[in-house]
């Protein structure tokens, strides 16, 4: 059954979209990741204009992270003070990201930027995850115990404007969480991702937050930052397709339920190596698209919708 998407302005198979939602939802449920970094490239592959894919995916991530954030809130797993600082940073970052996005859309380079950002970040993250899980597997094979490092004082402790975060048991400078929040905000605006894959490691390794508040706080930040991104893209480029976002959400909710159950049966490092391979796969496909000579060198866009702002 075909469905016409009002903002993307094209007709696409409804079941294909639902299947994509279920598939990505399944994977995100299984691996415990947001799935934006899989969904956005997938939307682009099936022909949704990259700008619409990014903006709409930000909207969908708001929907898929809000219930998770609510669950963690009831468990007391959110550091609101830290979350607030991260959101402030995220708001600034997403404003900058949306501005870059709008500028590049007008000059016709937004598709290139999205592809480059994906290749760069997926390549980096995928390689790091792959290496980490290989190390764990080798260590398990040799029967060594994981080494626990004591936190050492670094340049982070030397930064000014320190603030106490009771829930996270930290007394640190607000500059670092502001910067991390800002980076995630930029990525959310230009890539259509929640940014959990950057946020969670950054909270654990850079901010030294206890693991019981990491996921909840990052979900809170993601909910707010993607909401801000949705608003900015709606105002700047009118690229948020509510209908597309809702269809993807329905699929994702179903998929995530099944995925979470399957994920419980697999071991952590196996899961992580699978995820790493998938991330690297998406990265390779996008990189291939950049380096091969396109069949059609010329592309067209409506002049008014493209450079009028």
């Amino acid at each position, binding site marked *: *059954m*075909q*469905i*016409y998407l*009002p*903002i993307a*302005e*094209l*007709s696409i198979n409804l079941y294909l979209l639902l299947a994509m939602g279920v598939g990505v939802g399944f994977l995100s449920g299984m691996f415990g990741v947001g799935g934006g970094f899989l969904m956005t490239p997938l939307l682009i592959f099936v022909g949704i204009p990259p700008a619409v894919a990014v903006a709409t995916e930000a*909207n*969908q991530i*708001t*929907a*898929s*992270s*809000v*219930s*998770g954030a*609510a*669950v963690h809130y009831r468990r007391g797993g959110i550091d609101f003070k830290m979350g607030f600082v991260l959101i402030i940073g995220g708001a600034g970052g997403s404003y900058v990201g949306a501005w870059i996005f709008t500028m590049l859309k007008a000059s*016709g*380079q937004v*598709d*290139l930027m999205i592809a*480059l950002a994906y290749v760069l970040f997926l390549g980096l993250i995928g390689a790091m995850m792959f290496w980490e899980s290989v190390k764990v597997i080798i260590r398990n094979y040799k029967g060594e115990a994981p080494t626990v490092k004591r936190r050492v004082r670094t340049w982070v402790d030397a930064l000014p404007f320190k603030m106490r975060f009771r829930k996270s048991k930290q007394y640190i400078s607000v500059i670092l969480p502001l910067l991390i929040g800002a980076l995630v905000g930029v990525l959310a605006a230009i890539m259509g991702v929640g940014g959990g894959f950057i946020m969670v490691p950054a909270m654990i390794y850079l901010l030294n937050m206890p693991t019981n508040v990491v996921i909840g706080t990052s979900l809170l930040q993601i*909910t707010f930052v993607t*909401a801000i991104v*949705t*608003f*900015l*893209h*709606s*105002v700047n480029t*009118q690229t*948020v397709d*509510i*209908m597309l*976002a*809702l269809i993807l*959400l*329905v699929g994702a*909710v179903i998929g*995530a*339920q099944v995925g979470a159950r399957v994920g419980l049966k697999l071991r952590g490092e196996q899961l992580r190596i699978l995820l790493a391979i998938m991330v690297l796969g998406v990265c390779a496909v996008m990189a291939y698209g*950049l*380096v*091969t*000579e*396109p069949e*059609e*060198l*010329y*592309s*067209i*866009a*409506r*002049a*008014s919708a*493209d*450079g009028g702002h």
Partner: protein
Amino acid sequence: MTRYKTLIALLTAALMFLIVKPVFAERLVTDLSHDKIAINSRFSGADLLLFGAIDRNILQEDGGHGVLSFGLDYDIIMVVSSAVKDFVVRKKEKMGMIWVNGANHVISNVPGYFIVGSTNPLSEILTPDLLKKHEIGLKYLKFKFKDNIPKKVKSDFKAGLIRNMKAKGLFMEVEKSVSIKDEILFRAKLHFPANMPVGKYNATVYLVRDGAVIARKTSSLLVDKEGIERTIYNFAHESSALYGLLAIVIAVFAGWAAGYISNKMS
């Protein structure tokens, strides 16, 4: 003197021909199976029928009793086009390892949809001059370039634009897509892809005989988004801030509801 006589006779014949010519005029009656296409959420393109009849109001040699059936091989050409717009055409260039959008030029006077159908190949029906005059055919479209650039670059960009539009199914030239029955009735099926631009379309039918356009008729067609599609599109473009807020509210509510339902299920 005989020379003069022949000349006078010829002139008279020519004059007579000119005078009686209007009597030979055919009339075209055309219609579209729909005069409106509504783009709604189930829209996946539309097929329309353009049909009509050739009303042969011809002075016949025997005063109208017999039927003159030779020398009347009509050809029909139909051109359907939407309003003209400006397009940016970009060319990809290799920069180091990767292909990026390089040079770009704005081309104006480009119809968002343009289809030519005919009973026979266009080159067999009309001379290039006439085709050009009536803008029949993709290569006779009068595109305008905003920038002053060499002719070769212009023609490359123009060809690129046409290839792109053809690939989207928005530009088409289909020979033998119009059929004529008994030299009176004609019909053609028109296909409109789902990505068709909205707005007013003109469908012009040309009646051609002996290499000349002897009649033409234009009917109009309206393409518009309807229902929820129209509402969402207008809302997003006219009050984009409010649309953004609504998108957030819907997402939060849908996300919360989805979480609630999956909680109940597990």
